[in-house]
C-alpha cells in the first residue's frame, strides 16, 4: 500500500473543557479529493487549523509524507507543502491581486534583508520573475482575474475572492490544498466553475491532493473521491458519498434523531 500524503492519527484538541476535535484519523492519498462535511460547529475548521499548525493538538499527531509535523509552526508547514484557504476568505485586502499571489510564493523565493539591500538587482529580478509566474498562474485560474491584477483585493466580488485565494494557495506549489467552504457565497454557476477549476488544477498538477470542507451537497456528491463526516469533533463516517449519506449516524447528525428515525 502506498503511503498517504497527509495523515492525522487520533488528533484531539481541547479548549478548556470543550473537546473541539476528538480522536480524528484522517488519510489523504496522492491525487485524491477528500471532502469533510458535518454540521456547523462540528470541528471541521478546527481540524484544518490543527493540520496547518495554527493550533497545536492536545493529543495525536499529523504526518506529511510520513514525516511527523505535529506542533510545527504554520510557516514551516506551508513550506513543506500544505496550503489552505479560509472560511472567511482572508485576502490581503489593501494589496493588489498580483501582490496577493506573489506573497503566496513566499516559500518559493528566498531574498532576505541583506540581499535586498546589497544586491537590489537580484532581489528585484527575483520579485519580477515571481510576479511573472504569479501573472501566469492567475491567468490559468481565470483570465478575468488576470485582467484585474492591479486592482486591490478588497474590490473583488465574493466568487472572485475565492478564486484568488485558491490561486494564492497554489502559488506555494503545495502537495495538499485545504479549501474551507470554497463555495460559500457562490451561486450554482459559480460552484460549477469552482468544481471545474479544481478538476483542471488537479489534472495540470499530478500528485496534488485536495481536502475540502463543504456544505453544498451538490459539490459533495460530484467532486470528491471520498467523504468524511464529523460531528461533535469526532469522525462518524467515511467513504463513498452514496454510502455515507445513507448512514443512520450521518442522518441523525444532520436531521436530528427523530427525523432520522422517521
Amino acid at each position, binding site marked *: 500500500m502506498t503511503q498517504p500524503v497527509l495523515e492525522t492519527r487520533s488528533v484531539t484538541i481541547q479548549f478548556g473543557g470543550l473537546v473541539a476535535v476528538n480522536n480524528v484519523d484522517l488519510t489523504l492519498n496522492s491525487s485524491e479529493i477528500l471532502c469533510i462535511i458535518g454540521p456547523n460547529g462540528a470541528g471541521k475548521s478546527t481540524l484544518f487549523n490543527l493540520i496547518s499548525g495554527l493550533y497545536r493538538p492536545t493529543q495525536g499527531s499529523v504526518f506529511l509524507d510520513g514525516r511527523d509535523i505535529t506542533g510545527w509552526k504554520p510557516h514551516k508547514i506551508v513550506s513543506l507543502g500544505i496550503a489552505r484557504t479560509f472560511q472567511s476568505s482572508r485576502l490581503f485586502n489593501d494589496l493588489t491581486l498580483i501582490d496577493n499571489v506573489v506573497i503566496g510564493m513566499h516559500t518559493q523565493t528566498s531574498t532576505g534583508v541583506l540581499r*535586498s539591500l546589497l544586491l537590489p538587482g537580484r532581489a528585484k529580478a527575483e520579485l519580477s520573475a515571481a510576479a511573472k509566474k504569479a501573472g501566469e498562474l492567475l491567468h490559468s485560474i481565470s483570465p478575468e482575474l488576470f485582467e484585474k491584477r492591479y486592482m486591490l483585493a478588497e474590490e473583488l466580488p465574493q466568487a472572485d475572492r475565492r478564486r484568488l485565494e485558491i490561486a494564492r494557495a497554489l502559488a506555494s506549489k503545495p502537495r495538499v490544498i485545504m479549501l474551507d467552504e470554497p463555495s460559500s457565497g457562490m451561486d450554482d454557476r459559480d460552484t460549477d466553475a469552482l468544481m471545474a477549476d479544481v478538476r483542471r488544477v488537479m489534472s495540470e498538477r499530478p500528485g496534488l491532493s485536495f481536502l475540502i470542507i463543504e456544505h453544498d451537497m451538490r459539490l459533495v456528491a460530484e467532486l470528491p473521491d471520498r467523504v468524511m463526516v464529523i460531528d461533535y469533533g469526532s469522525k462518524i463516517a467515511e467513504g463513498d458519498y452514496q454510502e455515507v449519506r445513507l448512514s443512520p449516524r450521518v442522518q441523525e447528525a444532520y436531521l436530528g434523531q427523530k427525523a432520522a428515525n422517521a
Partner: protein
Amino acid sequence: MHLNSSPNRVQFAGNAKLEMLIVVAVELLCAFLLGTFLLSDSTAIIVALLCLMGGVFALLQIRPQIEKSIVSAFANQRILALVLGFVVIVAYPFFMQGSSYAIHLLIISLLYAVLALALNFQLGSANIPNFATGASYGIGAYTSALLAINFGISFWLTLPAAALVATLFGFLLGFPSMRTKDSYLALVTIAFGIVVHQLLNNFSWTGGPNGLVGIPAPSLFGHSFIRPIEILGYKLPSQANFYYLTILLVIFSILFAKRLHESRVGLAWNALRADPLAAQCQGINVVWYKMLAFGVDAFLAAFAGTIYAFYVSYISPDNFTFLVSVTIMTMVIVGGMDNTLGVIVGAFLLTLLPEKLRIFSDYRLLFVGVVVILFLVLRPKGLFPQRIRNYGQRK
C-alpha cells in the same frame, strides 16, 4: 526632493515635453515655496503659504487626475527628475541667503525625515506600533557621543558602532512582539521608551539630566565641520557641512526603504500588515519579520541620532522623550503610511510648523495639535497614500 517618487506609470500618453515641463515646474516650485517658508519672518506670508498648501491638497483630493498626471510625469521622466532634484538639493544652501537658522531647520527636518522613514518600515509597511523610535534615536546619539568623548573615536567610526548598538536594542524591543500585539505591544514600546529615557536621566555616566556636552565636531579630509564652506567665493555657514551630511543620510535611507519595499521583505511586511494570520499561512515567519522591522527601525534611527549629537554637540535625555516618539509616529501617519515621499513631507511639515509658528508663541503647540487632528480627519490615508507595486511592468 523627489528622488523617490516610485514609478507608477499610468496610461498617460502625454507628450514628453509636457511631462518635462511638469517635472521641472513641480520641483522648482516646491523648492521655491519651501525656501520662502524657511526664510520668511512675516506671519502673513507663512499663513498664506500654509493656506496655499491646504488648497493644493484640497485640489488633489477633488481632482485625483492632477496627482496622477504628476506621478506619471515623474515616472516617465525619471532621469530628469533625479538630476534636477540633485542639482536643487546641492545648490539649496546657496539660496538660503547665508541664514544659518534656515539651514538648521533644514537639517532638523531632514533628520526627522530619516526617523520617519525608519519608523515607516514598522508602522507603514507592517502596521506594528512602535513608540520607542525616540529611544533608538537616543541610544544612537548617546553611544556615539560617549565613544567620541571618552575614547576619542572618530565620528565616522561611531556611526556603525551606534547603529550596531541600537539595532541590538531594536531586537530586544522586538522580542516581546513575539507574543504581544496591538495596544499591548504599543504599551511595551512605550514602556521601553520611558525606561530608556529615565535611565539616561539617572545614570551618572550619561551625564544625568544635564546630558553630554562638548561632543567634538567631525572632520573630513582635514576640513572640520565647524568651519564654513567656501567655494568659488561663496561662503556657506558651517551648518552647511551637516546639511550635506544629512542629505547623504536621507538618500541612504530612501534607497534603503526603496530596496526593501521592492523586495520580498517589503511584501512580507505588507502581508503582515493586512492579516498576520493569513501571512503565516503563506509561509511568512511572522515573528522574524516583526523583529526585523524593529531592528531596521533602530538601525536607521541610530544614524540620525549620531549626526544629531555631533551636529548640536550637546545632547540631553529631553531630546529623546516619549513625545519625540509620538511626533515621529504622527509624521508617518500624517504623511502617508508606506509612502516614502509622504513620510518625508510629513516630517518637514511637523518639524517646520512648530518652529515657524513661534509667532503664535504660546499657542503653537495647540495649533500643531489641531492641525494634526484636522489632517487625520480630513485626509485619513495621509498626504500621499500608499502606491501600488507594478513590478517594472506597465500597467
